[in-house]
């Protein structure tokens, strides 16, 4: 009786400890934001890795999503003669929802995995300890630039993904579905409000923070050898993806209110 109660207690304690390291790391990073050094060159190089190097995968995802969305919504709207609303659906869906979520998932897979694997490898090969002995704060040098970079780059990637997604819908509507290009452009912007764009960008900012925090925490506190790095990387991607979807719901509810 006591044994399984103990086992449950230990599990609960472990989950609480694991859950506690995310806010702890976030707090430590925030504390460091106010004092130099900020390692601007590192932030820039991470921005390049997160932003520029993610462009192909993000844009490819966005254009095909926009194209599929146009086709699918045309099928529905065609049934009651509202084909001209295709572009409205594509633009609203991309800007409010699909842009931030899909870019978030893509960046979680590409960048989150890379952060966790890099930091995890540095941890198990004692490179993080070496930084400390070289009078350098590892959180400031490694973690802070990564979290800042992914948080700043996500909104930019989302803006581009939104534009390319809407363009994908335009291609399908005009070439495949033979719609009037002028009508597509008009309807795409007619019902799109600035608040839609803001809500998408806010989501992108939050998702960027989530990816940075989870993947850096998993890598930074990684234990064990190659297996530990593998597990940290997997956890980083899965937890980031799940957290993005959960946060998306709550942000949407909040924005609706």
């Amino acid at each position, binding site marked *: 009786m006591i044994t399984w109660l103990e086992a449950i207690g230990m599990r609960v304690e472990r989950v609480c400890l694991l859950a506690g390291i995310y806010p702890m790391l976030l707090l430590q990073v925030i504390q460091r934001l106010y004092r130099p050094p900020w390692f601007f060159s590192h932030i820039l190089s991470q921005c390049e890795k997160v932003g520029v190097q993610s462009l192909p995968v993000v844009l490819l995802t966005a254009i095909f999503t926009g194209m599929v969305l146009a086709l699918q919504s045309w099928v529905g709207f065609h049934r009651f003669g509202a084909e001209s609303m295709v572009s409205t659906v594509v633009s609203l869906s991309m800007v409010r929802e699909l842009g931030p979520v899909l870019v978030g998932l893509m960046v979680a897979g590409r960048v989150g995995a890379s952060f966790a694997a890099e930091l995890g*490898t540095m941890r198990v090969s*004692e490179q993080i*300890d*070496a930084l*400390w*002995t*070289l009078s*350098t*704060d590892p959180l400031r040098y490694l973690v802070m630039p990564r979290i800042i970079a992914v948080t700043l780059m996500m909104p930019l990637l989302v803006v581009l993904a939104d534009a390319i997604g809407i363009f994908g819908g335009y291609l399908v509507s005009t070439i495949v579905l033979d719609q009037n290009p002028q009508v597509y452009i008009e309807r795409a912007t007619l019902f799109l409000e600035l608040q839609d764009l803001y809500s998408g960008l806010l989501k992108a900012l939050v998702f960027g923070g989530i990816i940075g925090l989870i993947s850096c925490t998993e890598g930074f506190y990684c234990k064990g050898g190659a297996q530990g790095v593998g597990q940290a990387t997997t956890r980083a991607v899965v937890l980031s993806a799940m957290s993005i979807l959960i946060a998306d719901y709550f942000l949407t509810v909040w924005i609706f209110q």
Partner: protein
Amino acid sequence: MSDPQIQVCHLNKQFGDKIILRDVNLKVMPGESHIIVGLSGTGKSVLLKCILGLLQADSGQILVDGEDWSCLSEREKLKRMRGIGMVFQGSALFDSLPVWENVAFVLLRQGMQKKEAREHAEEVLEKVGLPHVCDKMPAELSGGMAKRVGLARAICHRPRIIFYDEPLSGLDPVMSDVITRLMRQLHEEMQVTSLTIAHNMKLVRDFGDHVSMLYQGRIHLQTPASQLDLQDDPIFRQFVEGRASGPLDINHLTAQGSQI
């Protein structure tokens, strides 16, 4: 007699219910080369990490130059690290930086111009016998070369104390001798204090001034290196002679080590 440069007082550390260090007391005098020996899993590296602040001790004091490091904030500890050099067991070179930037890491962080820092790095690399590897990446180096680059990185900013964590592990006997000679030469040239974790008795004899044996989490024995062979403690003798049979509780240590 001068004060110890490093002093560890009543240090305790445990992971979960495993006690790793119990009431460890240690003194390292200025300019001394002190070596800590002991079987794998006895807590030697944990002791070193506690001294360096990489691990938080559960209780006890760590005094460096008379200052209690266990009371310092992270920021203050980082500042004190400028006087410290550390050679890691696996070299721990930064994969993403070329050799010279690894070596001159602290200098570059302190704001030195790249050209000047590179010249310093080249000088130090020449000291460790690797004048032509400046632009190589760490992945291109052999184990022995990486160890020497690690040593160059540890001494480039002229520290007062150098810590070595098993500096000869994974090296062949010839390369081990090269590194040992280099350590001795640098120790004498720079007049630094050294604290080394080692298994290798040849390193202990060639490099150590003073030896402490860590056993079951405690300092079991301390002796000047010159009197190694005069010690008649059976546990110490078994370790020095490298015998499998004897009073050393090998099973207990191995089980504890695997937990760490």
